[in-house]
């Protein structure tokens, strides 16, 4: 079976006025379905840039990137929105829930606006997801009425509502305390095991990194040669 993500010599150059910023300088890797992958590295090393490319929010300057069998740089803006809606769930560092919608409505949102789903099925999916992330009791609350950890649970449920092949999370625990961070990562891992959805997340936090099956270290836009330690979990639990 083809890997879920194939990256070959990925280069991303930002044009900041006169100055060129080489955010990614030839990155190659493959990620299989059902993996729990972490990209780590110092600030400015290119983690966000890489996740944006994988998530088809942005396109590479050169190199090849195939996600779920699709060369995403060949899609136009509308097609990329559609591609994200069908294949990718996104979790944000600061949760980014829609403030005017309740917890339930936030999780339901993609099933109405992104991947329209019949009401009965929609309600079933939302209830099950709320149960899975442990947020059922907050269902009718608005985002400003719940804690950071609860918000991120809602965000995870929202990302999973369309049953994507891949969930991307850029520093999902950066705004959470240590204990909550660990619980959120555990939850993501558990959901990966239950649903078979692949997760790719970036983080600074070594304690969070240690939960990953596969760990990639970025430095100055390049992948560090994998060490024995950080490939330990490769191909591990599915």
């Amino acid at each position: 079976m083809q890997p879920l993500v194939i990256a070959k010599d990925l280069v991303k150059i930002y044009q900041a006025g006169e100055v060129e910023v080489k955010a990614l300088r030839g990155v190659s890797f493959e990620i299989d379905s059902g993996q729990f992958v972490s990209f780590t590295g110092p600030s400015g090393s290119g983690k966000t840039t890489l996740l944006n490319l994988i998530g088809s929010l942005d396109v590479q300057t050169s190199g090849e990137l195939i996600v779920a069998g699709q060369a995403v740089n060949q899609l136009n803006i509308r097609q990329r929105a559609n591609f994200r809606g069908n294949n990718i769930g996104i979790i944000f560092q600061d949760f980014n829930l829609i403030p005017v919608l309740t917890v339930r409505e936030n999780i339901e949102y993609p099933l109405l606006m992104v991947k329209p789903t019949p009401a009965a099925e929609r309600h079933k999916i939302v209830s099950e997801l709320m149960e899975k992330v442990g947020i059922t009791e907050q269902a009718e609350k608005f985002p400003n009425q719940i804690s950071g950890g609860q918000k991120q649970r809602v965000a995870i449920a929202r990302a999973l509502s369309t049953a994507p092949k891949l969930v991307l999370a850029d520093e999902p625990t950066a705004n959470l305390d240590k204990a909550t961070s660990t619980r959120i990562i555990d939850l993501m891992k558990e959901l990966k095991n239950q649903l078979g959805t692949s997760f790719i997340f970036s983080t600074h936090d070594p304690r969070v990194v240690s939960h990953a099956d596969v760990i990639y270290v970025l430095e100055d836009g390049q992948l560090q040669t994998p060490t024995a330690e950080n490939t330990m979990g490769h191909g591990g639990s599915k």
Partner: protein
Amino acid sequence: MESARIAFRNLYRQKRRTGLTVSIIAFGVVAVILFSSLAGSFKNMMISQITDSMLGHLQVHRSGYVESLDTMPLNMIMEEKHIDQLKKALAEISEIEGYTLRILLGTLLSNYADTTNIKLSAIEPGNEKLVTPLLPGRITQGKFLEKGQILLPNLVARGLDLGVASEVVVIATNVDGSVNGTSLIVSGIVETAVGPSGKYGYIHIDDARELLRMESLQVSEVAIRLKDAEKLTLVMNKLQTALKGITDDKGKPVFEVHPWKALSPFNNIANMIDLMTIFIQVILVTIVLISIMNVMLMAVYERTKEIGTIAAIGTPPSSIMSLFIFEGLFLGIAGAAVGNITGWVLVQAVKAAEMTISFGQSDNILLAPQISLSTMLATTFIVILVTLLGAIEPAYKASQLDPVEALRN
């Protein structure tokens, strides 16, 4: 309609701003409704003052008569056979309520001591009352006209020191150039009205025929009243069509039909009122457009990160656009609704207050503002259309935001 729900919630979230925007739009709508209903009632009132107190809605003359109206020429008058033809044509048109025959004549009026020029309209009293129902109301002293009597305009009565029951002599030159006179009794004093024939005196048409030694029936003008003043153009066209074929020995058309508008300078004022109504509407459109664009651009700017989020999770640009279009639409609908209700209530209040105004010599004319359903619907339609227009640009901007850029916010 998830877009509509989110749009509604976003408006609800910004209660103060939403309230302010709705108020601004509503204020504009109220201004339009109040102005057009008041101006409209003022206009209608003035029009009916003019048509109902002297002109009638339509007038028929011999061709060329109106251009030389100042001299009231007796050689440009309709002959008996013309009158028969005209009566036949008028009988065919069901929208006509009635008509009256008039002879207009310039005369000398004497109280045996002093003499003055006076223009007279010689009328059929019964038909005249039907065509110009406000005429009897202009009589301030005495009563309406009978044969052998004269209704004097107040200025002439004052000038010659005449009152009800005074005897006067009227002297006129007939079509052959010979002079004749007759003595008449003043039946009443009539108030002057605004308009070209507002200072005329009135005598009975039979007295005029004797005075002018007319053997057959001849008249200067026929004034016509319609059942519905709004049907003016329709009736005018029908009548013109019916009279088109009637020509004199030289092959020229005998009749000329004029609507009241062509006979009164007041028509310009009426047009100006219409123009001002349009002007107020343009201001309304501008207010709505600017406030909607402003508030929507503000919303897009404030919610950039939210837009980035929903775009990132795959919301198509068209749905993002619809989110903001709905917001604008709701603001427009709410503004139009509040404005229409407030405007309607205010119009009823003005009506209930029975405000009066004076116009020309007549005062205590009741101001009766009317607001038609069609005006309210048209205003609503325009407001909603304009809010949509105002929301399109900000909504499009939102839909085109780059999610990566927007999320950095």
